[in-house]
């Protein structure tokens, strides 16, 4: 942590400072759709390359990365341009992050501004002494190859730069949305999913926990995992709320009807309830979770929030190990080493240390696209295609065991 940072000084029970950055058009829309009341205590800021996007935003802090090169027309969908611009104004970004303890970056990758600025902003925030968590969406398939590639490249850069990246592929949400929906609705729904995840993490970090989940736990979970995290936020109320919550969770579209859980290798579960969260309820949920993700490392947190009354909210973040062999990228490694020098220090360095030593992975963007699609392809059930599925606690036993347990056959 750098010297000029007001850090969490022991003895002073200061609320950590959260700052949310919306980067690019998509990011700005996301930040604007956040309910400021719900996220009270957070400071909002937006960054873009063109002025028109910024003008409509309600965020109190607006940063326009402008240069004569762009002539006020934005980055023109070229992340290299906006990246160069962001590097040029690195100090501006850094000072924007100054004073924050945790920085959330919201962006849609694939376009110009978001893809270019987000990784640089993450790095700037880290150098300014904040922990960085990025929430990004990946483009829809129909948006074309170029955007997909740009998004993947940007994601590769963002992962080492941020402490954690939570990423929502558009292809996943596209399936859930009615085809006839207008494009505006589609984007709104996708953003809604992301915000749900953000809300869950927000609650996780800000509510005083009975069983606390620290930011470090979250980072540990996200670090070095698969490109695609899955997350879900569900809530239920009433007498059978724990059962209902589990049911919704297992049917949650973003968890592939529970399949994502079975394939996961690290899961974070956070339960928040109004008064009267009982041990039995926690047990019931955790038992199910354990059963669902037999091989995963599970971290759990529990908190009470009187405002929720008799609601029970469960946030699940699932990370999956990359099974494909990956090579270390020299270019990216050197980048992280510079980060190291920038971020090593005292204070919360215990949190950050593992982040610095993490290996960085990179694959060719093209092959990655194919790889990341594989688990999504529907497994043919062969002989049992048309028969009633054998469901056992949310698991379809007709699907070969070796597939469900993720056993690689070389």
């Amino acid at each position, binding site marked *: 942590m750098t010297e000029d940072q007001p850090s969490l000084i022991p003895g002073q029970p200061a609320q950590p400072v959260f700052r949310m950055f919306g980067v690019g058009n998509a990011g700005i829309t996301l930040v604007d759709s956040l309910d400021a009341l719900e996220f009270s205590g957070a400071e909002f800021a937006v960054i873009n390359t063109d002025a028109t996007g910024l003008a409509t935003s309600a965020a109190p802090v607006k940063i326009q990365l402008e240069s004569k090169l762009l002539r006020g027309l934005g980055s023109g969908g070229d992340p290299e341009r906006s990246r160069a611009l962001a590097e040029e104004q690195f100090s501006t970004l850094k000072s924007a992050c100054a004073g924050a303890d945790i920085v959330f970056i919201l962006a849609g990758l694939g376009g110009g501004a978001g893809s270019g600025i987000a990784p640089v902003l993450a790095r700037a925030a880290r150098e300014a002494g904040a922990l960085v968590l990025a929430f990004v969406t990946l483009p829809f398939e129909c948006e074309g190859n170029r955007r997909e590639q740009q998004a993947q490249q940007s994601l590769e850069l963002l992962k080492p730069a941020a402490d954690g990246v939570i990423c929502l592929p558009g292809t996943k949400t596209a399936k859930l949305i009615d085809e006839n929906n207008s494009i505006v609705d589609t984007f709104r729904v996708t953003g809604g999913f992301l915000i749900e995840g953000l809300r869950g993490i927000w609650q996780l970090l800000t509510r005083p926990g009975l069983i606390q989940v620290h930011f470090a736990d979250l980072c540990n979970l996200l670090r070095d995992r698969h490109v695609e995290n899955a997350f879900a936020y569900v809530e239920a109320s009433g007498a059978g709320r724990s059962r209902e919550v589990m049911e919704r969770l297992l049917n949650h579209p973003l968890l592939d009807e529970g399949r994502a859980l079975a394939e996961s290798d690290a899961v974070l579960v956070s339960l928040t309830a109004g008064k009267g969260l009982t041990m039995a309820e926690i047990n019931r949920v955790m038992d199910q979770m354990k059963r669902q993700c037999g091989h995963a490392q599970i971290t759990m947190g529990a908190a009470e929030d009187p405002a929720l009354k008799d609601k029970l909210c469960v946030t699940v973040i699932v990370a999956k190990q990359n099974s494909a062999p990956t090579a270390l990228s020299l270019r990216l490694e050197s980048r992280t080493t510079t980060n190291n020098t920038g971020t090593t220090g005292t204070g919360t360095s215990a949190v950050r240390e593992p982040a610095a030593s993490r290996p960085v992975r990179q694959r060719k963007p093209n092959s990655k696209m194919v790889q990341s699609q594989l688990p999504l392809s529907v497994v043919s059930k062969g002989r049992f295609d048309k028969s009633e599925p054998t469901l056992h606690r949310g698991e379809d036993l*007709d699907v070969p065991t070796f597939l469900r347990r993720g056993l690689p*056959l070389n």
Partner: protein
Amino acid sequence: MFDEANIIAGLEIGTSKICVVVGELGPEGALNIIGIGQARARGVRKGEIINPEQVEEDLRAALFEAEQMADVEIRRVFLGVTGSHIRGFNNRGVHPVVSADREITPDDVEDVVKNAKAVNLPAENTVIHAVRQHFFVDGQEGVTNPVGMLGARLEVDMHVIHGHANRIQNAIRLVRGTTLEVEEVVFNGTAASLALLTNEQKELGALVIDMGGGTTEFVVYSGGVIRHSGVLAVGGDHVSNDLAYGLKVPLSRAEKLKIEYGSAILTDAAKGQTISLTNELGMELKRVNVEHLQRIMSLRLEEVFQLIAQDLEEAGLTDYLRAGIFLCGGGSRVPGIVQLAENVFQMNVAPGHASAISGLTTALDQPEFATAIGLVKFGSLKLRKRAVRPAFSTGIKQVIGRFFTQHN
């Protein structure tokens, strides 16, 4: 000619085969297996009929074979049923003893049993078996016959096995369509455990796992009564399907590979070994890695055992299985299955043999026939019970008369 009343036939419509076993009840009450007929089943998936026409055809073939072998005409059968819809659970019935002297009468027993049977089933379900476990008299445990005892409160534990009424009715209708009468419907797991376990083993506590083609049934006995039962709609078909998917071979080929090279545990001999599959001209089509084959198979079978183990643990029965675990069904033929089961359950496991029945030894030794043999045994117990009550000759007539009134 045999006395027809003493002929008992068991019919199992399994996922891989349809099997008819004929037994004869001797004058001293000894059961003798005298005939077996079987046909490869088509039109059955996961223990349930999906194509009645094909099943009927196969059933006739199996029936014909059994009749030929036993040289009898089969009129009535005990029909085995299974499927994922079948569930077992324990229920307790309570009945206050109201008579002035507090002596428990047979009427009280009848009432308490009725109370225990009146369980909250889904509307479409029907009870297949309701087995009395133990009575409690004023909380005193382990009473087997409370009639004549004194008490204020009579309770009984029952194990109720129930299933989807329409699905069970489907099988019954199909059998009736072939002019056979269905005497009683029996859960396959119950039948298999009847064939395999001796009274002593039932007393000590034992688990029977019947690994069939489409389903796996399991039944736990302890203290001489059924304590737990269940069906997992996973069987040998799933193993073949996994192999077909994992090794990328057709299902029929996967089936053959399973039988020829399959193993429930990874054998050392399989490491790095491959088999080349050839077409009819002897040309190589594909090489299959035996290690993968066995690993896929082992994972599936292990999972089945794990699921059962989990279920038993939740029911709190793991410590009651002092006689160990007995395997039957085609799945118990897989090499290494006993060892795999021992690894999972950490308990003695043995392949089961149909015991306490005499007759065709070839049939008795085969684990696939355990269920059908058990059906015959179930039938013999029922007949014996009925025959004991009324005078012998009239009794039989009454029994037969009752079938007609019941089932027509």
